[in-house]
């Protein structure tokens, strides 16, 4: 994690960052229009 990410995370109230790995083997639905996301299991 670089300094920028760390600083942004600390000040933006974010509680963590996710990469692609948790979803690999399944599917991730980013329904920005509907304000929801969905996961199809692996």
């Amino acid at each position, binding site marked *: *994690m670089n300094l920028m990410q760390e600083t942004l995370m600390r000040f933006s109230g*974010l509680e*963590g960052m*996710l990469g*692609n790995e948790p979803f690999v083997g399944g599917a991730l*639905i980013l329904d920005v*229009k509907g304000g929801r*996301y969905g996961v*199809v*299991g692996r």
Partner: protein
Amino acid sequence: MKTLFKVLLALVLLLVLSGIGGYSYMKGKFAPPANQLTVAGLPATGPLRWLADTVARPAVPHAGLLVPIRLRNCPRTCYLQVDTGAPYTVLYAHQLTALRQRYPALGTSLQLREKVVPEFRFALGGAQVAVGHTKVLVNGTGEMPADSLAPFIIGSLGADVLEGRVLVLDYAASRFTLANEVPADLAARAIFAPLAFPERRLLLTAALNGESRQLLFDSGTSAYTLLTSQENWQGMAAPGAAPVPIPPIRGAKNCCCTRWLPTPGCALGPLSFRWARLPT
């Protein structure tokens, strides 16, 4: 006494005003520029590809997520890295130069004007995308891979493509879908949880050791599973369990890799992280 009071009041006022000023300054600083990306012809679907980092030790097979795009008058398929952590789409200067030299028929369509491409048009899985005022970063190797099947990455697709739309990243089938609605067959099989999109940042509500948290989804830095603070990480340790050192994935101490427990019908939603011992 009265003078002292006035001076104090003025000081307090000054503090409050500079606080408000500083806050709005920082807010403006981090606010993304207006969204200049438009899409016609949805839904669109196409293949998803992994970019492997073979230079890193150990090699990272999932270093980046790529989508193919087609440019008018360019026979070669180019690629954009899917970067949901970036609020807007960018292009890489050296790659554009290489493209223009190889394919003069591109003409002035990718010509830079004051560090931006005024109108960047491409076909993405059957849809027509236009990005006005596309920022160009001094980036890229400037070399086109000799192997025509090797991905030639000319930029990254930011969260501007997501605004008001639906993006499905089907990692299992290696396909993406960009649409206006969630495909019905997928919606029936998926578990949903709230998503927020402030300032074009994707925040997914997930459970960290049973507690609801908002996590930023950044498809552009794929080499890790979950990054969280030391406190959250310590909170995730199972009671009584001795902490097992976790191999650093990226950036050592604040990094932790945990098990993903997708349980259908789970009250915690589709994403739940728990501290887990790594198999030794």
